[in-house]
């Protein structure tokens, strides 16, 4: 989404979903995994909305859907690409919106091309693209040339049309296994929202992202919503459903390797050799007067962040201690980290609230990786499958040298702080009770560790010992405890995150006043405005609604950016500032000011373009920023039951295949069935909490898989039997739930069966079972490397 719209976040918010006319749930089982927020989907239905469930099997979401379309795991691009083709061939697009607010009319470099699954610039040896040809044609002012009639063969619109011509209903059906008529019905219902007064929203989750083509899956949804003119609209947008209550918070605050807080890119060793170079490489420029190009302010956010972190030590002369920032020498997502750990490259690890022995891909390999550590710290509510990895079934504790520390931690109701939901709302929570025994908050632990490190480094330096780089620790600006107190105060952290004037220490009202000269400090520019001199905006619980009565509740907590509830809302009006859909208006211009939601990019309507985070200012149908192509293309999962019917490439040509895992993939001759993993409402993630709760283990006590009655009968399996499920990476045992909710897909004439599994089980809790992730592969998306949990190959037999 960041590459299509400018920000990688849910565009609308939960309550807004009730305003949709069509809700397309794909790559998500929202009723199952977001059961409470799902009420807004049902509210939409009460108002006449149609719910479409596109899923490999019939789920709890399907049970309340109006239309169900089966889809083979990993074939979203074929399906949605087919809808793109349907929309373009049948002229079901919101023409004015597409011309004005997307890059449809922009002209692309004539050297750009695509052939048989490969875009121009492919380096086969390195599995990487050179993107020089993926560029716009520029005029003399450096502004992309365009053809608003959309006829030029090099304009994005025509290139896109040509690209998706191959995604015919017949081809879609052959690849996905969805019957042609059903696919056409979905296409028809969904594209009915191209009308300005009709809107669809797309809800997606891990079923979309956890693939080697995950990012491109999202791209197809984003492109479709642009073509329909649904982005920025009430009841529209792309609603990415986070898999956990604070994942949005975790990415906002850069728990991922590739970013700094506020989605600033992490400096890369090879490219960003110093501060000036980083700024040059990472600050987009544009000469287009219509483009707000908000990332032009990036240097202000970076400098303010450095000032917050290094305080007095950060000066203009030393480029605000930029050199002290850790740099990325290579991509370092979860899979790479554990491969390195497996190769013995880590002395120790600190795992906080995470359970990779159950939740990690190729989990038995990840458990073996833990055995290579000298020490492991597990900070969790109680013992987890990971904290007892050393005595898991099959392990030999005597041979494992890892020293394990289990630190008891406070639960979410035993500490104070904010949680940022899928809709970007940061809701402050108070402490309901003290944690039991010696359990501590995460803040306490991190604070205690850092201050101890400071002490140890200071002592080492004073004693003349050789230290690698003590200054960033010793001189770090770290002060989150009030004088005389023993516990750090989350309010002090929140204030730093909001940002303040370095001299006066006065909190800033929002990020527009941040500077790049060291006079401001800010822990996360995105959260500017969340905790101001007026108080903790995140703790507000006001129920007054905006004038448009859409359930935005601007005084309930605070959302980023600057409390804008629907981002890209400038696209919800025409160039005169009048809403495309007056009945559900988000913002409107009354001649002198904007009413409604916080307008995206200020100023009069026709002065600026709505996608302010992109240098073009318009939404990208053609998006050159991704590793695997400016247009999505169907590729098969790494382990696939069929040859690719769309082109001669197998897996995503840009997906990274690490040398260390080259022998760990199977083929369909040995493993004929599509394996996939998913969740049930009753269990939570890797099960460390829920497999200890009797009310929940009453409901789902055992590891189970789901198979069709036909596959069961073929294998002599009856409902409830113990079965063995095997992949190239291991074997697990499970109980078989034989259900008609699962049915083989007809893939180009061949019947392909599925084995679906829940991944909540492990052997370290009150209730045990084998882990599905023993079977999943160490390969992931070409851009993010999120593991391909959702499509792999298995065999199954009665145990």
């Amino acid at each position, binding site marked *: 989404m960041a590459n299509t719209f400018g920000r990688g976040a849910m565009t609308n918010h939960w309550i807004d979903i009730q305003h949709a006319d069509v809700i397309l749930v794909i790559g998500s089982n929202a009723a*199952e995994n977001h059961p409470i927020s799902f*009420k807004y989907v049902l509210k939409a239905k009460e108002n006449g909305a149609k719910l479409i469930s596109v899923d490999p099997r019939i789920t709890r979401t399907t*049970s309340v859907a109006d*239309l169900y379309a089966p889809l083979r795991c990993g074939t979203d691009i074929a399906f949605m690409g087919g809808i793109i083709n349907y929309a373009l061939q049948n002229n079901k697009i919101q023409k004015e919106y597409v011309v004005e607010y997307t890059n449809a009319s922009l002209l692309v470099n004539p050297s750009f091309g695509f052939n048989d699954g490969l875009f121009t610039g492919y380096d086969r040896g390195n599995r990487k693209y050179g993107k020089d040809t993926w560029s716009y044609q520029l005029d003399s002012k450096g502004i992309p040339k365009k053809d608003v009639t959309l006829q030029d063969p090099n304009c994005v619109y025509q290139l896109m049309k040509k690209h998706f011509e191959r995604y015919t209903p017949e081809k879609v059906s052959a690849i996905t296994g969805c019957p042609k008529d059903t696919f056409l019905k979905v296409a028809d219902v969904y594209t009915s929202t191209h009308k300005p007064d009709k809107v669809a929203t797309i809800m997606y989750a891990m079923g979309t992202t956890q693939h080697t083509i995950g990012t491109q899956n999202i791209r197809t949804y984003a492109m479709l919503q642009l073509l329909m003119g649904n982005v920025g609209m009430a009841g529209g947008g792309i609603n990415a459903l986070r898999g956990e209550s604070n994942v949005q918070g975790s990415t906002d605050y850069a728990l991922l390797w590739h970013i700094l807080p506020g989605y600033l890119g992490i400096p890369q060793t090879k490219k960003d050799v110093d501060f000036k170079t980083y700024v040059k490489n990472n600050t987009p420029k544009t000469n287009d007067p219509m483009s707000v190009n908000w990332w032009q302010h990036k240097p202000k956010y970076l400098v303010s962040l450095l000032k917050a972190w290094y305080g007095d030590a950060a000066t203009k002369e030393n480029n605000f201690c930029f050199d002290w920032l850790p740099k990325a020498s290579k991509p370092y997502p979860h899979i790479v980290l554990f491969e390195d750990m497996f190769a013995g490259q880590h002395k120790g690890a600190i795992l906080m609230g995470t359970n990779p022995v159950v939740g990690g891909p190729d989990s038995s390999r990840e458990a073996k990786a833990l055995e290579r550590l000298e020490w492991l710290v597990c900070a969790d509510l109680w013992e987890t499958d990971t904290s007892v990895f050393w005595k898991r079934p099959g392990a030999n504790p005597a041979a494992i040298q890892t020293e394990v520390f289990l630190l008891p931690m406070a639960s979410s109701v035993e500490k104070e702080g904010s949680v940022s939901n899928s809709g970007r709302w940061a809701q402050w929570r108070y402490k309901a009770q003290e944690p039991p025994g010696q359990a501590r908050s995460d803040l306490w632990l991190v604070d205690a560790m850092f201050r101890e490190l400071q002490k140890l480094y200071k002592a080492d330096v004073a004693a003349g010992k050789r230290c690698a780089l003590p200054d960033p620790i010793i001189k770090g600006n770290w002060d989150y405890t009030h004088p005389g107190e023993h516990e750090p105060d989350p309010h002090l952290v929140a204030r730093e995150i909001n940002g303040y004037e370095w001299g006066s220490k006065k909190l800033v009202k929002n990020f527009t006043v941040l500077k790049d000269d060291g006079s401001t400090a800010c822990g996360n520019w995105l959260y500017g405005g969340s905790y101001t001199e007026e108080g903790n905006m995140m703790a507000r619980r006001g129920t007054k609604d905006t004038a448009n009565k859409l359930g935005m509740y601007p005084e309930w907590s605070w959302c980023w950016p600057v409390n804008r509830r629907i981002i890209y809302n400038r696209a919800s009006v025409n160039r005169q500032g009048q809403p495309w859909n007056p009945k559900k208006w988000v913002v409107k211009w009354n001649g002198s000011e904007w009413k409604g939601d916080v307008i995206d990019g200020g100023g009069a309507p026709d002065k600026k373009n709505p996608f302010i985070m992109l240098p073009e200012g318009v939404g990208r149908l053609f998006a050159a920023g991704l590793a695997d192509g400016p247009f999505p293309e169907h590729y098969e999962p790494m382990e696939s039951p069929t040859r690719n019917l769309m082109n001669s490439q197998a897996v995503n040509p840009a997906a990274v295949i690490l040398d260390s895992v080259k022998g760990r993939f199977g083929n369909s001759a040995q493993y004929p069935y599509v394996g996939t993993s998913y969740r049930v*409402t009753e269990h939570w993630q890797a099960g460390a909490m829920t497999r200890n709760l009797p009310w*929940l283990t009453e409901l789902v*006590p055992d590891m189970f898989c789901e198979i069709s009655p036909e596959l069961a009968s073929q294998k002599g399996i009856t409902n409830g039997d113990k079965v063995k499920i095997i992949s190239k990476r291991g074997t697990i045992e499970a109980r078989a739930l034989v259900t008609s909710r699962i049915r083989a897909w007809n893939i180009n004439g061949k019947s392909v069966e599925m084995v679906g599994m829940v991944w909540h089980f492990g052997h370290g809790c009150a209730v045990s079972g084998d882990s599905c992730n023993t079977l999943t592969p160490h390969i992931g998306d070409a851009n993010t490397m999120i593991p391909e949990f959702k499509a792999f190959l298995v065999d199954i037999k009665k145990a």
Partner: protein
Amino acid sequence: MADNAFLLDTTKCTGCRGCQVACKQWNGLPGEQTEFFAGPEYTNPRELSSITWNHVKFFDVDRSNPEHPVWQIMHKKCFHCEDANCMKVCPERAISKVDGWVVIDQSKCIGCGACVNECIYHVPHIRQSDSKTYKCNACTVNEREIPACAFACPTGALTYGNRTALLQDAQSRLKKYTHASRDAEGNEIPAVFPKAQLYGKDQFGGLKMLVILKDRPSKYGLEENPRPLEITKVEHMHDTYALLSMFTLGIPSLKRMAYRLSKSSTASSSDSKIS
């Protein structure tokens, strides 16, 4: 006395089982030891019990219309019949109406199993540890304004309120579900659940658990026209029991014996149980 009831609209239920867990939590009931699933699908445990006062029944999916499969998921607990069999048959008069709800007073219950035998919905169950019978009491015992299950339901499938108002609401919803309509362009939209029916309006004099089902009740194990127990059939048994009780000195196990003797000595109730 309030005339309240539950309305369960199964077309909105996603089977999250928040109701099943909320009841356990509010009433301090332990989780059951289960294995795999009792079925069909995720149903666990198989039946209500003395420690499971509501559970969610999943039925097999009807895939006859591939584009609109019908998966009936139904919250099941005591239906709180107006004309309850259990109340009529209890020899100790331990079951009575509290605020309109059918409630077992465990202090009077002797665990004879009469109510267990006569309830066609298999609701009450005897607890081995204390030989007393338990079932949903609509949260009248551990009081709350809205019963825990309805309060927990996130989708509004299970609601609680005045029975007359809920009945009206149910009728208008049924109309919507079972009739075709037209969209803004005049295209016909087929009925979403053409076979939907309401259960609970008149059975046993009217149930306080009204259920909108996606298809006819008999598909889901619910008898459409159950015959309530005729009071005359048990009167003779009660008379015999009253007499025999005089010799039991109030000891529950002796009372149970007295009940068994009374039952077998009179013509037993002819209402056979239909699951």
